């Protein structure tokens, strides 16, 4: 099995699936000769031609709307939005068209497409290049949202997303792109959307997160006393998310910390905490705690590390939850 980083895993998976399914078309800014600004689509235009790997005009709403039309016309588009901050102009097409089409036509018209979007902070990029808007696209019904944190998961989730008959937003944690390698099976496999991954089993406290924060949580675990048994869950899918995994874990541990990069208020941490208190109320030994970005704009990079949840902040929250 080859060792791949996240960029390579997505790249090879795209190639593999484009080989298998002629309906796949990639479109986006700089995805062609340049191979994308993160090189995720490197070599694909040379291999599959400029008809299937399309450099688009600089217009995210156009990319999204045209992709919706391509899907309605029988293709399986994979639009790329260059950074999650530029989903803004495409928001209306995504939530009000892609997310509604099947429902408003009572199943007559579907929009099978996978929207690939580099996501999250941690790479010292300019403004609007480090956000994490997963809660936004989860609150709007009709769109699936996934955030793989490792190359192996990325492959399985990407294949599941592409083959899903509905629109999926596939957020790619930039910080992980080249910072982590693992063996990725060459064969075809999918990971069901909506299934969390148990990263480490534990009995004292549940730690729930996704994306690059999985690694920050792992770092936090390293600093915790040996006898603290943490159950670390990588949610992987945000919409729908694995309620069962979350609830069962907290029913077991009675304590929970949710960690995400996005701002706290009305973020996914709130939903997860609420589901826990709704469904595991009598098991809870302490309030569910949120370790998240602050309720302010993701700062320019000098303060980026202060904004993002750190291993230290996570550790502190875990300790306090345990001490409650």
């Amino acid at each position, binding site marked *: 099995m080859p060792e791949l980083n996240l960029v390579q895993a997505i790249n090879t998976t795209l190639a593999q699936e484009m080989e298998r399914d002629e309906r796949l*078309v990639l479109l986006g800014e700089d995805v062609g000769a340049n191979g994308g600004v993160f090189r995720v689509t490197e070599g694909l235009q040379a291999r599959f031609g400029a*008809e299937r790997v*399309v450099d*688009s*005009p600089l*217009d995210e*709403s*156009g990319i*999204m*709307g*045209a*992709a*919706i*039309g*391509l*899907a*309605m*016309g*029988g*293709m399986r*588009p994979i639009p790329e939005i260059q950074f999650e901050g530029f989903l803004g*102009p495409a928001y*209306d*097409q995504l939530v*009000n*068209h892609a997310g509604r089409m*099947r*429902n*408003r*036509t*009572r*199943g*007559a*018209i*579907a929009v099978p497409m996978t929207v690939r979007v580099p996501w999250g902070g941690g790479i010292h990029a300019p403004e609007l290049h480090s956000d994490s808007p997963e809660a936004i696209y989860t609150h709007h*019904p*009709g769109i*699936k949202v996934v955030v793989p944190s490792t190359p192996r998961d990325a492959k399985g989730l990407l294949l599941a997303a592409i083959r*899903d*008959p*509905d629109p999926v937003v596939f957020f790619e944690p930039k910080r992980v792109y080249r910072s982590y390698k693992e063996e990725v099976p060459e064969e075809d496999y999918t990971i069901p959307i*909506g299934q969390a991954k148990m990263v480490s089993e534990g009995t004292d406290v549940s730690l729930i997160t996704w994306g690059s924060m999985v690694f920050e949580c792992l770092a936090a675990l390293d600093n915790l006393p040996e006898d603290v048994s943490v159950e670390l869950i990588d949610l992987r899918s945000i919409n*729908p998310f694995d*309620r*069962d*995994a979350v*609830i*069962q874990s907290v*029913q077991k541990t009675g304590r929970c910390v949710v960690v995400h990069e996005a701002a706290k208020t009305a973020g996914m941490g709130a939903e997860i905490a609420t589901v826990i208190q*709704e*469904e*595991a*109320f*009598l*098991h809870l030994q302490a309030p569910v705690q949120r370790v998240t970005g602050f309720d302010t704009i993701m700062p320019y990079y000098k303060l980026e590390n202060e904004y993002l949840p750190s291993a230290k902040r996570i550790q502190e929250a875990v300790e306090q939850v345990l001490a409650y």
Partner: protein
Amino acid sequence: MPIRTVYKAQIDHMQILDEDGKLDEKLAKNTLTDEQVVHLYEQMTICRTLDEVAFKLQRSGRMGTYPQNKGQEANAVGAAIALEKGTDWLVPCYRENAALFMHGLPMHYILLHWMGDERGNQIPDGLKITPLSIPIGTHMLHAVGIAWAMKLRKERGVACTFFGDGATSEGDFHGAMNFAGTQQVPCIFYCQNNQWAISVPREIQTAGETIAQKALGYGMPTMQVDGNDIFAVYKATKDAADRARAGGGPSFIEAITYRLGDHTTADDAKRYRSAEEVDSWKLKDPLIRTRKYLERKDQWSDKKQSELDERAKKITAEVVKTAEGIEKPHTDDMFNHLFSEIPAELRRQRDTLRTHSLGQEPGQVGLRAPGQAEHV
């Protein structure tokens, strides 16, 4: 060269059938046969009758807001007959009812839609029609994508999308035009410039002298036609479709027309436009003009008219009956079609019709056994 000209453009306006029903024979060559004209006249009349019926339904509380097509019917029928049913896609806004009917949409679908029922959008298999689009100016991008798909799949189809003058101000109009141009997709942009976007007149919508000139920025063939003239509409659409099929890419058509009614049943156009203006446009009504033409060619009579009126009444009464005969949807319907497979939590919401989650023993609250899959 210090100063040199790098770009030149010119836009023409075409009219074939004038307001008195007189035809320009040269331009009319190879356009519509008399038989076709009769057919289009009938379609326009039925559509207008439906408008009247729909208006009454709304007023009597049997239907929600409804936008009449009155005055603009020539655009719909002239374009529809220039396109191939089942091959070409229609991507409408909401003032092209007759085009949809001609391409196979059961008439009661339109009423169902405005009766607040998504099943009015559940386009029957085989029809190449997208549902009415409520958010203005956003659906043209879908037409571009559909046309693009046809190009990639080497199908002969063309996508024709309809929209109003107001819609040309939205950002997505710009995107659609630009993508269509750069990808050279077989797409026709049909703008029904009816002079108003609710209460906002064309002059406040854009500082350009015409809407047609907006296409110049995208390197797209463009023209103006008299949108109340079925011949001009037909010819412009047919030429654009032929060009698109031959690989010539997209075209833009600005059709000058007028809505004779209110914007919708929720609107009162008297608040913002003068009776004189409306009256002057009544003289240009496509139904009157087409009838005059047919009379001139001895293809029409009062008898035929009253037969048609009778038929239109019967058809539309039947349509109302069908639409009103459809039972209110089951609440399940609002959950079942969000995704191809309904997620577990949404299924719970559907089955319990509630979002709160109490009422069971804690410990078994709505939980399935681990790994137990959900199937619809």
